């Protein structure tokens, strides 16, 4: 009887541990998915803002910022 109860305890603890593991994995997966939008936004900023800024042409920088913020 004791052995059977021990096994049940171990098995239920294992299910709980697996459930917790699935929760963590789902959380990590959601976090990874969110990187898509984040990375796309950063790439867009680099292409649209940082590249014109490297020119050090003040009017070009102001124009790039205006164009960029207007297009959002």
């Amino acid at each position: 009887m004791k052995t059977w109860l021990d096994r049940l305890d171990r098995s239920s603890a294992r299910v709980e541990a697996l459930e917790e593991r699935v929760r963590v994995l789902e959380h990590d997966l959601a976090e990874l998915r969110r990187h898509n939008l984040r990375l796309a936004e950063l790439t867009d900023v680099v292409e649209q803002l940082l590249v014109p800024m490297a020119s050090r042409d003040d009017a070009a920088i102001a124009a790039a910022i205006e164009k960029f913020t207007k297009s959002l």
Partner: protein
Amino acid sequence: MVTSRDVVRRVDQDGILLAAAADKVVDVLVDERRVWSFWTLRDTETTPAGSLRLAPWPGPLQRFLDGRARITVRETVSRTVIFDERVSFGSGTGEIAIVGRKGEPLSLDKDGRLSATFDVRDAGHTGPLLDAIEEVLSLLHDLGVEAFPAYGTLLGAVREGQFLGHDSDADLGYVSTETTPVDVVRESFRLQREIEERGYDTHRYSGAAFKVDVVEGDGVVRGLDVFGGFFDSDRLYLMGEVGQRFEREWIFPLGTCTLAGRELPAPAAPQKLLEAMYGPGWRVPDPAFKFEKDPRTQERLNGWFRGTQVDLRRWDRLYSSRRHTLPRRQPSTLAVDAHRELPADVHVLDVGAGRGRDAWYLAREGRRVTAYDYLPHAATAVRDAAVRDGLPLDVRRLNFLELRSVLGEGARAARQPGPHAILAVHALDATYAPGRDGLMRFARMTLRGGGRLYANFWTGRKHDLSRVWPISLAEVEKLVRGHGGSIVHASESVVPRADSGERALGQVVAEWA
């Protein structure tokens, strides 16, 4: 006309009382014009009378119900009339007219919004929209994307050769040749920018969908939604509902469909895409159709593309009726205190400005101020009044949940000459962690050369708050330090409230110099 009182028992101020054995979709007509459709079981409530069910008038229609009107209820599919009588509502004696400000007929569209739906519009009105559809399709083609009418617009074209009567906007879709969400988003950004450059107003919904505003012949502005999609190996994902196994040959090469007499591109097997969008019953008209969202598809689409418009609709509803009225409330204590403390030449960046009551106060005091909000049209009245009175007040869009917005506006503000300060009245508690990070990033960018952040927020102590995300004083202090700032002042006080006991208000002044 056949009338059966056995089915609809009564129509009055409360709604439509009916006996329904099976779930059927019905149209409600006011003076022979459809204004609403509902399912007799799904969209109705049980009543004390047991077998009878009540379809309450939807909120947007209720305000019109004062006076007399001929009410007709008919089954959508068979067109059988099940009620047709003149009905009196409220104390009014005039004829009820469900029309907009300019007298244009309105009805409830598929999303339950009161709109100038297509069933009340003639060719003179839809012609400009068809022109715009063709123009945007051709533009997208030139930009390297093979787009086609999607969702309700595709359904209308394939099933009826027309716009759906109960629809109010036009949808376009495309399946990208890109294979990862990040590249699909970048492509969508590019497309929006190019379309904006051609003179259209655009609004982004998510990383893979945006709207193009088209002004029609009668001045009505109608949205044209552009949804992006892509193949992830053998699965098609199309914003905003589709995610399932799909053959490429069902999309490419594109075929054609006919919409209101015009030939437009269509997926190679449009019936397959319609089935993915509306289920196998897509051939049967259903003006009250509700999407049954697949949770796994939604999880993926949310993770990849969404998260930048949290609560936007709720704020929009809150502000939409009042945006042409100047705010009457007194300015916040924080704005008054900050104004007193700051030198006269400091430009105040009022973030999360809402209707702009503090910005309006500061501008009238002669201070230069920019009111930022992710719904800038909430401050329409303040902006117009400032222009009229020649006050130094600017209204701009800033979305803390959108990195591009924070970086773009941050760069713009940081380049403006003169000292700045940020006023954040209940902005930190109007958003959640990612939005708070956005606000701090904006502060870090704009205050690097000096200036202070003045912020207040409900801390969540003392009262259970609705519609806000309370944040503790300690959390805000940690947030500021985590973003490289230092705390000048931090306090918490209990504020008595007329309506709900008391609340604890946190206040922080921080700097980045």
